């Protein structure tokens, strides 16, 4: 399947400015991913977003949406693409103050030419989905900031677009509300996968919601990859500096910090582990690798349930309590309960310290 959005050597220099806002950016954004473009203000990320829907014309390079280069489109075709293929959510909400919440949500469908009775149904459904089913007839000014941005999101969702462009959509909101909105976006994404291009200057937000992150500085992409790749394998000192303050425990999972098992014992089928008397602690497996339990010289046989095993996808932060209390290295299992390795409290502390 081809990329949802392809940027090829995209550049933008605004007239009268000495440096380009966006320089030679090439990216492929895949269908169904939340792609976060991260950068400080002035890094060119908003300009980049506006070139994707043609609000800003690139100086050079090309943008292709679902395989179709924007430069090939007539004005009418571009408008059709904006009406059906993508919708935008703004940092300032950009709601129409004279329109009711419902008519705001129906705006995109009105532009697309749907009659009033037909456009109000999807608009209402979108508003109900974002939790504003009771506020249909209020004006935007009567809502709080968080609720206004829910209207902004509903206005985009009412079109049911395959692509969502979100320009610092949650940056103007209080931290708690921002988290709610991030959760809402993740829930929406779990229901129906859309391609989301999300502009943000908030690193925690980028790591929390992004499937992939492109880190921008002075109009250039420093590195593009999953949050983990950027965190664990920064391409340059600048990228490393960006991630310095990040809470690694909320990004890394146990699989990524595994240690090899010190001592394993493969038990033949039907044998009784409790009959053995080991010299040292060992992890007992079936011939197929499934974790059965731990044999300890002091405490004897400990079954898997009591051994405090954790799934490999558990985040480091969520594992701290279990690992810290465990008298032995915590076994880490894959989804088929096969033993992958262990995590010790010492390893956990080292992992968290690397971030500081």
């Amino acid at each position, binding site marked *: 399947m081809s990329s949802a959005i392809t940027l090829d050597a995209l550049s933008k220099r605004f007239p009268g400015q000495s440096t380009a806002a966006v320089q030679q950016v090439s990216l492929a954004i895949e269908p169904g991913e939340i792609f976060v473009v991260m950068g400080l203000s002035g890094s060119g990320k908003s300009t980049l977003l506006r070139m994707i829907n043609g609000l800003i014309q690139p100086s050079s390079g090309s943008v292709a949406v679902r395989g179709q280069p924007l430069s090939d489109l007539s004005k009418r075709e571009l408008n059709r693409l904006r009406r059906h293929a993508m919708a935008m959510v703004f940092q300032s909400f*950009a709601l*129409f103050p004279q329109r009711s919440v419902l008519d705001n949500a129906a705006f995109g469908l009105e532009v697309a030419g749907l009659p009033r009775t037909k456009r109000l149904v999807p608009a209402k459904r979108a508003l109900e989905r974002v939790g504003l089913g009771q506020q249909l007839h209020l004006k935007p000014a009567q809502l709080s900031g968080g609720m206004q941005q829910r209207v902004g999101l509903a206005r985009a969702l009412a079109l049911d677009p395959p692509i969502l462009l979100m320009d610092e959509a949650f940056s103007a909101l209080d931290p708690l509300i921002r988290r709610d909105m991030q959760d809402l976006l993740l829930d929406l994404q779990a229901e129906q996968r859309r391609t989301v291009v999300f502009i943000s200057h908030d690193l925690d937000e980028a790591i929390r919601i992004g499937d992939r992150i492109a880190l921008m500085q002075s109009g250039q992409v420093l590195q593009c990859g999953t949050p983990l790749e950027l965190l664990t394998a920064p391409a340059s000192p600048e990228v490393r500096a960006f991630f310095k303050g990040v809470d690694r425990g909320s990004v890394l999972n146990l699989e990524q910090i595994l240690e090899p098992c010190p001592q394993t014992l493969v038990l033949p089928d039907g044998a009784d582990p409790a009959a053995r008397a080991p010299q040292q602690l060992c992890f007992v497996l079936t011939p197929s690798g499934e974790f059965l339990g731990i044999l300890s010289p002091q405490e004897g046989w400990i079954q898997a349930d009591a051994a405090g095993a954790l799934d490999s996808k558990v985040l480091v932060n969520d594992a701290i309590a279990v690992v810290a209390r465990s008298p032995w290295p915590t076994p880490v299992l894959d989804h088929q309960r096969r033993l992958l390795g262990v995590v010790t409290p010492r390893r956990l502390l080292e992992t968290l310290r690397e971030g500081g």
Partner: protein
Amino acid sequence: MSGAFAPLIASLEQAGPVGQSVDAAVEWLLNHGQGLFGVVQQGIQALASALGWGLALPAPWLFAVGVAIAGWRLVGGGFALFSLLGLNLVLALGLWEPMVDTLALVLAASLLALLLGFPLGVLGTRQRWIWRLIRPGLDLMQTMPAFVYLIPAVMLFSTGAVPAIIATLIFAMPPIVRLTHLGIRQVPADLVEAGRSFGCTDLQLLWMVQLPNALPTVMSGVNQTIMLALSMVVITSMIGGGGLGDVVLRGIQQLDVGLGFEGGIAVVILAVILDRLSQGLSPSHRRKGQ
């Protein structure tokens, strides 16, 4: 020193080169544009007659009550009472008919000014060079002493209601052009961007995003156009515009201070009514009132 300038000064004492070319232009128009002026004249005459006839149709008391009710709904109880008393005073002074004539002239001129001015204001927001072209024209229309173009208006359209309406139109049009332009330019950029991002065509953007936001400013342009039209209509009595201006003019000519004053009071009453009613139409005004 003065010797070198003598020929120049002499030539400026009569109509200068600018004046001569304006003379020539008016003469050329008189000779070549009669057909067009005939059509314009008949059109405006028809509009003025229809408005005058329509406004004279209801009995004065009915008219006053109608204005009071509209005023009560749009502005408030105090204003309704004022308009009822004010219109009664005009009737008692025997100035009802001239007032209706003046109102018809004001409405005809304002209507034409809005019909021409509003699209011009919108057009000015499309391209910067168009606005650069329009703006000096507006400056000219607003600041050129009105008496100066009363004369060519008479030459082109003879005397009566038509040149009065045209002269009024010229004077009253700039505010609606300027404020339409300003109102649309002041629409927040993010709203325009939102409209564009959802695929608005230029016309959809204007109709669904820009005009609803610009409406309070545009409506204050409508109000100013109406007020300027009223002030000009009084002056056009000098070219046979008729109405309350005639009463004031007669007062001046006959040195009848009382008559002039009566006409003046009727103008003021009409002005207040037109001002408050047209302000009451503005959406921002109404929202505040609620």
